[in-house]
């Protein structure tokens, strides 16, 4: 019932990752999983709970979808390079092969680095922390770095230089046999094409670093010069999204703008739906974040691809899906 062999592999991987980052001079930190405020991210739904406190008043608290908010405060306070392995929580995600509402995340920030440096840092970390006696075939292939521009052209025939224009993007979606909804946002039409044609076609036999995400998908990564993209990448192995990385935004004005716009969008989209609306951290936009690059990696997924699996449930001792779903009929 419980796969203790998988539990041992998980323990080994976590130990290797800790040892690796500590040997590279990163400080391991532990930050809260329960917080009164979050970074506004309209596409992520948080778990909300209530802190009962009869002395100072009750407060709504939220389980963190990532420790980013606290780790950036430490960076701004001069921590230098830091990492953390923590439990993170995302609500409203269906239970699936590579999703569990509670999962283990590695978050690592390298002071002075940019997102290009982080590719090398990540490749080295994965190589150095691999499990003993198990070498998945993808580890022997040279990692691929490909821009979103190249990938969208190659796998969907869509020219990202023209895609800023939503009418072009919609036309391309229709040409590809997709059905973008009326008045659909740029992000959603882009993702329809990306998820149907581009993401499934990325090579599955190696680490793939997909770089230069469109500027229109808002995030706290720096803008990439004059081009309509951001200094952000996502990494895939065996077709599974494993990690996400930014050259962290250091411009306080840009951060303030992001907070204002995304919080407004979050409130607009959720009001009246019953979904929790976590307040944005008011002090965050004033943080003086130094030049740094941060990566976030799903460790349940990394462990799965090391073991040649395409799902994480067998690696969790208590997957939520098992706790919630009745079993199928046993026998004829």
């Amino acid at each position, binding site marked *: 019932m419980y796969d203790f062999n998988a539990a041992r592999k998980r323990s080994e991987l976590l130990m290797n990752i800790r040892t690796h980052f500590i040997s590279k001079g990163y400080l391991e930190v532990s930050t809260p999983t329960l917080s009164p405020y979050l970074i506004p991210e309209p596409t992520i739904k948080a778990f909300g709970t209530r802190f009962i406190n009869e002395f100072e008043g009750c407060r709504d608290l939220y389980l963190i979808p990532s420790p980013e908010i606290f780790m950036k405060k430490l960076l701004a306070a001069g921590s230098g390079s830091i990492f953390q392995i923590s439990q993170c929580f995302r609500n409203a995600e*269906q239970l699936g*092969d590579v999703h569990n509402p509670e999962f283990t995340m590695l978050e690592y920030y390298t002071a002075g680095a940019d997102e290009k440096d982080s590719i090398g840092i990540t490749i080295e970390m994965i190589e150095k922390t691999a499990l003993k006696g198990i070498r998945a075939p993808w580890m022997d292939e040279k990692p691929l770095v490909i821009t979103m521009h190249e990938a969208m052209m190659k796998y969907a025939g869509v020219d990202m230089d023209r895609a800023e224009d939503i009418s072009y993007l919609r036309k391309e979606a229709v040409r590809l046999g997709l059905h973008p909804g009326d008045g659909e946002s740029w992000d*959603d039409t882009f993702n329809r094409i990306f998820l149907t044609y581009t*993401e499934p076609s990325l090579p599955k036999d190696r680490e793939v670093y997909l770089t230069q995400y469109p500027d229109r998908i808002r995030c706290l990564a720096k803008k990439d010069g004059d081009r309509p993209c951001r200094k952000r990448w996502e990494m895939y192995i065996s077709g599974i999204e494993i990690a996400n990385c930014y050259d962290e935004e250091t411009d306080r004005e840009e951060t303030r703008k992001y907070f204002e716009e995304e919080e407004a969008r979050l409130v607009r989209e959720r009001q009246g739906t019953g979904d929790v609306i976590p307040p944005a951290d008011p002090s965050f936009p004033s943080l003086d974040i130094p030049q740094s690059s941060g990566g976030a990696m799903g460790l349940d997924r990394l462990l799965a691809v090391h073991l040649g699996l395409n799902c994480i449930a067998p690696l969790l001792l208590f997957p939520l899906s098992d706790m919630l779903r009745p079993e199928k009929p046993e026998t004829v």
Partner: protein
Amino acid sequence: MIKAGQIDKGTALLIKGQPFVCIEREFVNPGKGSAFVRLKLKSPATGQVLSETMKSQDNAEDITVEDKDLQYLYNDGENFYFQNAETFDQIDVPMKSFPDYEYFMKEGETYRATFWEDQVLDIIIPSKIVFTVAEAEEAVKGDTVQGATKYVTTETGLRVRVPIFIKQGEKIRVNTETKEYLERVNS
């Protein structure tokens, strides 16, 4: 109408007037994007499989289906033949729509089937089935290494790797998803 996010394995949908059954559903939440679902939908009539990516909030046309118990009779290489356990009507289902199902169809056993109008959309295979070993290789003499295995064939033609102590005529329990031997069943 249902939201695409509510579609699960086994959900029946009407696409351009034709019924399809969801056989795979993968939830995808692209980094910093809204939730989408990637679906594989199978036409029970032709066996054709469609891939669709929909936003969780998109609407899809679902159809009302009904589960009925069917007793499996036989197959002739083209169709499976069942009898409705209540009405005794005979029902034929094209085998090409359900590849490999013949290995799990035991004569006389009752299976739950999902119907839309008169059409069988899905046949539910239990997660574990007890089979009789129809043919077993003789264990190689002297091969006493612990964990040694051999192949046997069940009465339905399924080849299963089993421990060498399993003999012809014995009953074994098999995981139907992995086609792996689970245990010997004492009758």
